[in-house]
């Protein structure tokens, strides 16, 4: 039961992100302003400052190491 609840929770979050992305892309295509960011734009925003850019790179390296070298 706990497993099912946890999986449903992850699925809801993934679905929310997907809906957000679709809504942002739709708003961008139709030229609405202001509009939500797409995930790509969110990444681009995070990359604009040097410290967050380095943090992103470090996090991405850690993720790859965690998934591919430690699992």
């Amino acid at each position, binding site marked *: 039961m*706990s*497993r099912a609840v*946890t*999986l449903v*929770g*992850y699925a809801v*979050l993934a679905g*929310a*992100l997907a809906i*957000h992305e679709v809504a942002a892309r739709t708003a*961008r*295509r*139709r*030229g*609405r*302003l*202001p*509009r*939500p*960011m797409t*995930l*790509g*734009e*969110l*990444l*681009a*925003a995070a*990359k604009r400052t040097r410290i967050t*850019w380095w943090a*992103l*790179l470090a996090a*991405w*390296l850690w*993720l*790859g*190491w*965690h*998934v*591919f*070298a*430690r*699992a």
Partner: protein
Amino acid sequence: MRPALRVVVAGIVYDESLEFGGDHRAHGGAAPRRENLGLPDDVLIELDRQVPSSHETSPELCSTVCHVHPQRTLGMTAPERGVWRHGRASDGWGGEDSVSVQSGSIRGVAATIATAGVLLYAWWATGLRPFTGGANVAVVGAGVVAMVIGRAAPVTTTPSSPPVGARAAGWMGLFAELVAYFQHPRYEHPTVSSLVNSALDSHIARWVAFAAWLVAAAGLARR
């Protein structure tokens, strides 16, 4: 009757847009041929030549080739459009404004070789035994190399508004992950890591995911 096609080429320096219709050149000169592009929603713009000083003063050149969707471009704010600096419009029918076939084929061969190299390396790296020094070096080293390569690529986009929804989902995901992480047994309280490990159990799945991770690393390092 086709709608009039309009294209916007924007300059970063002054944050001003230069609009022109049909297949006019970016600097406002005469069109090379044809009166209409004949393409209602897509036009190829090759950004490889400096626009005369009436529009720009920076000598910097850009060699990026972009597909531009006019409706999308016209709806953008100036910063969003500002990824283009100098440009000329291609009529899409060949001639002096099209990308040369020779350079295109060289790029194609190089891209094919690079892709094959990444896939071969990914297959080898994901076949290494986990929790070993070799696996650590193969994964992290490749990630660093991908980021260094990606670092050399040009700037791409500029965003416009705060990502409230994505931020909330991120925090909720982190919370769910922490709750699951501190509870046991793992099967009853799976973390994202444990789910990913299950999904990447086979060598083929790990191979594909690792190659995608490398490509994303290069993209992430691009500024």
